[in-house]
């Protein structure tokens, strides 16, 4: 089967800045792929390269086996849900959604019917006559999604689509996005800096830093077996501790330990609580163990010690993951 999007040694430099630096990547047809990374890591530039807003400085991008070199955005069967939605302010919702069909020369009646259908898909039936400005953030998000889906693109690009929504709405939209992708069977490429979002939505995740992919794998692989200190730290705020403290590996090596894998245990090592933060389901403790700062998540059912208290902590060796040396 042909991959949906292939990057071969793709770089995009802006002057001296290497926004994307020799990236190799294959996004499979029909998968939900996430590009995860901090701001400035090159993930959005990768998305813009796929959309055609940028051309690579070096390397080759193929979309379903066809070279995308020099192909302008309007000749790519790829549609984008923009970060700030980019809805056309002078059109109502129906005309926004139907825009992709209008520029392809479809008649008014047909495209309006198609727009209604697409709006129904995102549960916005009957909103066609409204102005974009009259909608809430979540509704605009859905309009942008319907507009991107109406052309039946081969690849749907989502640029931080849920960034502007509040937590509750974001969780709801995440579920809907996942369900929609499964139903339509389209290739979705999601760019996000929110590791929860990437891990919960995607089939596979690429972790970006400084223009390069640091790790590519399933969410479980990324979370359980981070390839480097950067990935361990960025995804799930893992504790990265020296091998001596962790009790495995050789000196000079580092291991990652998830905060939720640290438990209070009278038989464990002595540590001092430096801070306590109540999070509802869990309590986060910041600890100091032999000069090493750690964070631990204690289930809410357990009584959490106060800041300044001396506690004993322990972890099972199988939860430790030895990191490879930093490239």
């Amino acid at each position, binding site marked *: 089967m042909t991959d949906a999007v292939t990057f071969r040694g793709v770089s995009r430099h802006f002057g001296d800045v290497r926004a994307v630096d020799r990236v190799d990547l294959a996004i499979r047809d029909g998968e939900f792929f996430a590009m995860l990374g901090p701001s400035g890591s090159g993930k959005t530039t990768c998305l813009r390269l796929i959309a055609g807003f940028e051309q690579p400085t070096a390397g080759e991008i193929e979309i379903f086996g066809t070279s995308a070199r020099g192909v302008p955005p309007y000749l790519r069967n790829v549609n984008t849900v*923009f970060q700030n939605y*980019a809805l*056309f302010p002078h059109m109502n919702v129906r005309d926004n959604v139907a825009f992709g069909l209008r520029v392809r020369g479809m008649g008014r009646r047909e495209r309006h019917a198609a727009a209604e259908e697409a709006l129904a898909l995102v549960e916005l039936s009957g909103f066609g006559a409204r102005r974009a400005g009259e909608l809430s953030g979540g509704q605009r998000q859905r309009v942008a999604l319907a507009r*991107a889906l109406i052309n039946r693109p081969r690849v749907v690009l989502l640029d931080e689509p849920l960034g502007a929504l509040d937590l509750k709405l974001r969780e709801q939209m995440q579920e809907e996005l996942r369900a929609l992708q499964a139903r339509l069977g389209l290739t979705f490429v999601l760019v996000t800096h929110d590791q929860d979002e990437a891990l919960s939505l995607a089939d596979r995740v690429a972790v970006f830093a400084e223009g390069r992919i640091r790790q590519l794998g399933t969410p479980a692989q990324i979370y359980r077996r981070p390839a480097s200190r950067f990935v361990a730290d960025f995804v799930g705020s893992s504790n990265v501790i020296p091998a001596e403290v962790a009790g495995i590996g050789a000196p000079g090596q580092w291991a990652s330990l998830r905060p939720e894998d640290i438990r209070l245990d009278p038989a464990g090592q002595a540590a001092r609580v430096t801070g306590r933060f109540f999070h509802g389901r869990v309590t986060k403790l910041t600890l100091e163990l032999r000069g090493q700062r750690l964070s631990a998540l204690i289930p809410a059912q357990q009584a959490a010690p106060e800041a300044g208290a001396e506690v004993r902590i322990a972890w099972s060796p199988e939860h430790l993951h030895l990191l490879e040396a930093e490239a």
Partner: protein
Amino acid sequence: MSTEAPAIFAPRPGLLPRLADRLLRRPRMFVFLMVLPITLWLGIVYVGALIALLIQSFFSIDEFSGMVVREFTLKTYGELLRPANLDILLRTVVMAGAVTLAAAVMAFPIAYFAARYARGIWKALFYVGVMLPLWSSYLVKVYAWKLVLAKEGILNWIFAKLHLTWALDAFLGLPVIGGNSLSVSYAGTFLVFLYIWLPYMIMPLQAALVRVPPGLIEAAADLGAHPGQSFRMIILPLALPGMVAGSIFTFSLTLGDYIVPQIIGNSRLFLGQAVYLQHGTAGNIPLAAAFTVVPIVVMGLYLWGARRMGAFDAL
């Protein structure tokens, strides 16, 4: 803990600070005082003058004594419809329309460049370049154009050097817009109007284009719109309010101007000249007033039409 700072500071001393602090707590009073002078100015001086003008246009002139007859009549408006006067109106409206259209077409690429691409020094150069002509006297510019366009002028000289005099002659040979030389033709009048009012089209257009988010153009391309479609369906509609604002300037300024056609052009009258003549030489103030009402009505119709066509929908 007697050294603690107070939670609320003492009122500021002095009459003016006190007054200001008090005023800011009464927003309605504050706004009222702010708009009072301009309301008086607009309400009494401006609207008052306009009403006086309107009233004048409904009076007539006694043809024997030359005195204004202060009785309500539509006779003066009837005079506007005489062929000679109707010609003046038509000539002026067509000229204003042509100048406005040409200004919009010429201003668009300049404004688009300034809004989209110009940064730093180029942006500064743009503003200076557009505004600089406005800093010098209008009369000087018009006379300068006279020198450019005259038969012995710079333009003729350039055409001669390029061995293109035949092209210029062919152009001047065209009916209506041509003439003896550019400085005594409608084409010349048109060129000078275009030059003089162009900044008034560029500035609002640039302001409108700056506000079009580049993301919208990307979104249009992403959805399959080729550049022509993006321009027609996204950029143009969003720039239209700016274009209409600019056209209000170019259109109404051309409608009312009486100096440019007097210096450059043939001796046929434009509306502004007619007002000037009726008011001054002929002493027919009612007819001058009736002439003046025409641009107001035309502009009103124009704006009403623009609104009906959705020119302000993107505001």
